[in-house]
């Protein structure tokens, strides 16, 4: 058993980026839907690019092959008040960070989700659908 590591909390510079998984259901063809932004309370989990590659972020998904990875500029988030980004490392994920300040008022949240979408960029596309996962045709 390895002891859990308490990673130090660091300041995330404005010119850095954060990564987020985007499940297949949040895409129409190549178009990312604003539905991908799903706050828990007033925050949303992301990974800081200093400690995570897009592939690392995808691999943390329960089913990695069902996920793309999007990237958001920290400066873009911070210039969208009242949002902020903080490093909140977890023992098993040093990159873990949070977008904070997501509004709980629905009108404002609807606006914020479109603004976040505006500067999101897909950096790891969805893997092609694997036909081998489909049910085998019945034998006649």
């Amino acid at each position: 058993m390895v002891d859990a590591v308490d990673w130090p909390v660091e300041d995330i510079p404005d010119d850095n980026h954060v990564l987020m998984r985007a499940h297949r259901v949040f895409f129409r063809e190549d178009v990312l839907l604003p539905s991908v932004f799903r706050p828990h309370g007033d925050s949303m989990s992301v990974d800081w690019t200093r400690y995570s590659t897009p592939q690392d972020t995808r691999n943390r998904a329960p089913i990695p092959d069902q996920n793309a990875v999007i990237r958001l500029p920290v400066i873009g988030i911070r210039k969208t008040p009242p949002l902020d980004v903080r490093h909140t490392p977890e023992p098993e994920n040093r990159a873990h960070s949070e977008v904070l300040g997501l509004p709980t008022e629905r009108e404002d949240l609807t606006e914020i989700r479109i603004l976040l979408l505006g500067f999101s960029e897909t950096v790891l596309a969805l893997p092609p659908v694997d036909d081998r996962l489909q049910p085998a045709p019945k034998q006649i």
Partner: protein
Amino acid sequence: MQEVMEWPLLDCDFPEELAEPELDATNWEETSSQFSSRAESVAREELEAEIERLIQTLNLQHVWDSEGGNAYTEDTLNRTIAFLMVQSDWLWDVYGVKAPVPMIGPGPNGTIDLYWKQPAWELLINIPAGSSEPATFYGHNYGSQKIKGSFDPDKVTGGIIEWLML
């Protein structure tokens, strides 16, 4: 928060039967047949396909929403379908304009998102999980013009209709 322009309501009376729709959308087959009677007024196949895709997505919620916390009800789905039908039919009946079909997605906290991404504008409408809450919207033309607010999704809303006609 960015500054948001006031969006004028259309200067016309809404037909009463559309402003207070008596649509029973508790069953998708029923809804589909009601919809069929006005098939020329909307991009029916596209809209049906989008709704079917949403139903499949919601049925697979346990697969994609690994972080949990969201539950989608049939009532929210039915109100979404009813909203789309009322707006589409009204737009056709009054203006002869075919409504653009939104991309429909599972929104946060049991809500449903209707998202239009057009070359000249983008609009997000969020249908609430609770029937007593208003729908919320935000849209912009990629420039200085923005709309933001709330409305009763059971009624035709001039600002939204006008936006869909751009």
